[in-house]
């Protein structure tokens, strides 16, 4: 009788904590060393930081000046406009999430909780109410996008395009009794930072598309002019462009025309951003296969129609992620306007640190700034990545 062959079960890879640790942290002797070194680094950095944050730091400097940090000298009676813009933004993000992204749990929950979590901070009843309202608007529009009628996608796209010019109108005002004009020298803090970014994007986008088209054009003079502008601006530091707009714009204009400092800075931001925008759009244009042009021409479309109906829509769609990246970079770059004396987040930080009762509180203030910038940029880039994945941009 032949012995029954013992059939062993296939080796299972057991997923235990110890196994995970062994595989990911202690696989070889040098990996173990690296693990200890990294852990030591974390402890060495985190311990004094946490000890400082909870024992020595005096966060009163932030709490007392929160409104200044957020909106600068924007009139208190008109603050509802800022909240309105924020609520609209929340609604738009909610709608977008509902229409496209749908079931992405982690970041979605984070976004939904964020306004309510911020409302828990000690910021005053009115702000809490407004933040709660913004959060609700976001949730409601998410529900609308998720379970609402089809055809909302087109509306969402149009709403995004209309949103940025709209908030400029709301913040500045049109005159009259309802929306009185708030002059730009009263804008400040995070509001000014955001508005500089929005103006930069809204105006540099068409300019950048034109420049990109000009650079691709077959007409040598137009191409040379566009290339010169783009390479000149990209070759010099942003701050020198800002200085130029600040110092030379008044010289270029006729003597009876005066523009205030914020508008001058905006001109610099737009010119600078347009050159980078042009290069990004050019990348999109070059990614469109030549067959598209040829097919369009074969169908009898003329040059302008080919560009406007066939090439540009595809090119712009392909560069959406890069444009979002540029938006974030611009948001960070606008901090440089403090060097030409504007009161954006950095500028407000400087004035706050000059208050006699808060001398020497630089670490708290700049950590707070880093936190604000970090939160905004991280959320923006995370949203854009999810949206990119959901839209299937670049991976069609």
């Amino acid at each position, binding site marked *: 009788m032949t012995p029954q062959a013992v059939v062993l079960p296939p080796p299972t890879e057991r997923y235990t904590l110890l196994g995970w640790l062994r595989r*990911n*942290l202690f*696989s070889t002797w040098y*990996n173990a060393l*690296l*693990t200890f070194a*990294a*852990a030591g*680094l*974390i402890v060495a950095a985190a311990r004094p930081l946490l000890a400082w944050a909870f024992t020595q730091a005096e966060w009163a400097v932030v709490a007392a000046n929160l409104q200044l940090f957020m909106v600068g000298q924007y009139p208190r009676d008109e603050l509802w406009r800022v909240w309105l813009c924020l609520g609209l933004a929340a609604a738009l993000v909610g709608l977008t999430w509902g229409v496209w992204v749908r079931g992405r749990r982690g970041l979605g929950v984070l976004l939904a909780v964020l306004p309510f979590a911020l409302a828990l901070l000690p910021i005053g009843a009115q702000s809490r109410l407004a933040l709660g309202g913004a959060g609700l608007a976001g949730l409601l529009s998410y529900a609308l996008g998720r379970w609402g009628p089809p055809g909302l996608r087109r509306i969402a796209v149009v709403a995004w395009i209309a949103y940025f010019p709209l908030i400029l109108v709301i913040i500045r005002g049109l005159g009259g009794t309802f929306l009185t004009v708030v002059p730009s020298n009263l804008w400040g803090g995070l509001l000014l930072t955001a508005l500089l970014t929005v103006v930069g994007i809204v105006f540099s986008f068409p300019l950048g598309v034109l420049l990109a088209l000009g650079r*691709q*054009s*077959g*007409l*040598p*003079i*137009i191409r040379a*002019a566009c290339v010169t502008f783009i390479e*000149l601006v990209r*070759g*010099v*530091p*942003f*701050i*020198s462009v800002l*200085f*130029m707009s600040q*110092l*030379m714009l*008044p*010289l*270029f*204009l*006729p*003597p009876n025309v005066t523009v205030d400092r914020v508008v001058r800075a905006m001109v610099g931001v737009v010119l600078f951003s347009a050159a980078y925008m042009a290069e990004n759009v050019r990348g999109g*244009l070059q990614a469109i296969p030549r067959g598209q*042009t040829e097919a369009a*021409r074969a169908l009898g479309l003329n*040059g302008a129609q*080919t*560009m406007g109906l066939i*090439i540009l829509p595809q090119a712009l769609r392909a560069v959406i992620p890069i444009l979002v990246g540029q938006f974030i970079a611009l948001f*960070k*770059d606008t*901090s*440089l306007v*403090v*060097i030409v004396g504007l009161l954006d987040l*950095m500028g407000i930080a400087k004035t706050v640190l000059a208050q006699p009762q808060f001398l020497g509180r*630089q*670490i708290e203030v*700049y*950590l707070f*700034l*880093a936190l604000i*910038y*970090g939160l905004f*940029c*991280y959320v923006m*880039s995370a949203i854009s990545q999810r949206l990119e994945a959901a839209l299937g941009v670049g991976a069609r």
Partner: protein
Amino acid sequence: MATESPPARPAPLRSFWRDERVIQAASQLLFLALIAWVGYLLIGNMLAALRRQGIALGFDFLDNAAGFDIGETLIRYTIADSFGRALLVGLLNTLLVCALGIVLSTLLGLLVGVARLSANVLVNRLAWLFIEAMRNIPLLVLLVFIYQGIFLKLPRAREALALPGSIFLSNRGVALPWGIPTDTFTAYLAVLAAGLVLAVLTGLGLAVRARRSGRPQPTLAAGLLVFLLAALAGWFLLPQPPLTLDRPAIQGLNFRGGRVLSPEFMALLLGLVIYTAAFIGEVVRAGIQAVSHGQTEAARALGLTGAQTLRLVILPQALRVIIPPLTSQYLNLTKNSTLAAAIAYPDLFSISSTIVNQTGRSVEMIAVVMSLYLAVSLLTALIMNAYNRRVRLVER
């Protein structure tokens, strides 16, 4: 897209203004005329404005005595020196920070990029955290935080923190031991030059032998060894060591001896290096990931060792992907060094804005600064492009 001219056909009935060539030429002329007209208006306004202020255009003011002092200079500079020399001081300071910054950020970036690819989860996540933090915080906030929050918060010189190796940290800067040239220093430089020539000759000889024999030779290692031997021999065989070590010591309210690196310089360098290193880390990671794993497997199957695989197979291919984005990171670092203006390091930009304040010559100074940065950018791009030509894939 180049507009294609329709196939040439005889068109006697077509009017000349419908001829595409005429339209193209006319539209370009119109565009040129428009640019010329706008330029004429702007420059006319500018000249009129300058006349009203009683300023004539011209660069002869650069010979006038500057009348302001500069904190740190690489060349001799006094208040009585000219504006032109002050600009030169600024340019050298900028070049110093950029050169050091590029080298250090490349090294740190390489480390971060490799850590980001590590199989060790802790190291991997730590690198990710570092990269995300740097990418989401504006460089200006980082710089000001490092300057005001760290370097200016160090203890005073009298209570300076002493690190091993006679390094002192204080709010006056970092004091390091520094070599002071003795009488034999020039002779030692000659020895070093001779060692360099010998090393190159050794390397070339080995390279020739490698080609003849078909066996790899330790070209680089042998060259380095020869140079090192020459350097050591020179140091000990000369009648007196070429450098004597000067250790800093605390005397009164300041340091005596050694070399004191100012807090402004240290903050700028540190900020630029860690900020750029995060971006370089991403570039390196992307470059290494672009080489498919099959390449490694094939190299190992051919019997190459791990180090050989890395040096002969992975790196040459990864470099091809890495060099172009790395170049733009170097350019960014150069342009970002203008943020020195925010922390009072006397770089080219902050010195030129001091000159603008003193003389009111904004037009000339902006022209000078922009063209200098453009030149530095072009120079960096030229060097990197030349290198890129050597490593890139030669296609059909």
